[in-house]
């Protein structure tokens, strides 16, 4: 199984925009955890393994309820968690084309 940062980001976003249910996100994360226990998960990029895992472990259990039909986490909670766990990476990736461009100009 291959898990990359973009996939984890997308699951967060899909939960927030309602295209994926929290239950589906939880089961996806559970599958990743199971595969990790079996030692057959690869992370991309490898140096972001910790951040990817933090995102997966947040999504695992994201459908926890505090009362029947009432989720423990609000959308604001999930959004804040996404920013805390993946935000820096997302910002870095968004800034990367600029750095590449700047680097290209220096090399030119």
């Amino acid at each position, binding site marked *: 199984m291959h898990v990359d940062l973009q996939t984890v980001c997308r699951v967060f976003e899909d939960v927030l925009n309602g295209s994926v249910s929290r239950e589906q996100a939880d089961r996806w994360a559970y599958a990743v955890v199971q595969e990790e226990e079996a030692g057959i998960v690869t992370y991309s990029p490898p140096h972001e393994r910790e951040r990817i895992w933090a995102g997966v*472990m947040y999504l695992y*259990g994201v459908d926890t309820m*505090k009362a029947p039909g009432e989720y423990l986490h609000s959308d604001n*909670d999930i959004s804040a968690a996404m920013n*805390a766990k993946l935000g820096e990476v997302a910002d870095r990736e968004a800034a990367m084309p600029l750095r590449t461009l700047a680097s290209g100009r220096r090399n030119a």
Partner: protein
Amino acid sequence: MTVGFVPDIDVVPSLDNRVGAGATTERPASAAVVVQIKQVSLPAGQRLSHERLHEIDRVFFGPFFREKYGRGGDKALENDRIRYYGLIQPTNDGGELAGRRYVHEFDTMTGCTRGWHETVDRAGNVRQIRPERNDGATRHYQFDSNGRYRGSW
């Protein structure tokens, strides 16, 4: 591979105090690293105490689980199991609940593991657990602030 602790993410230290009594601040280490343990010979008939054995278990198995599941601490139980506590994932609804965490339990005698999600209140009491069942069914078990079972749904 070493993984640094990120202090400003998911940390609600006061809630982890209860389980953190036996927690360690030791950094996770690669499972591939073999640490040579100094041999200690005990007088005939003398055995290591349970506490000492549990401490050895925690050190030995720590690298396998602490990095993944034990960021909030770990605790050796009397029944030869070790519990690894994840960090609290906070909820900000203004109510009495503080958030949830995943707990992973490893049986050092059988090698079996099990896990569940705990919901904790702001006083650090476990108010709800949601076991990960093999059949995939989801059920929440609730407790009051004194730890008394209230029911499930």
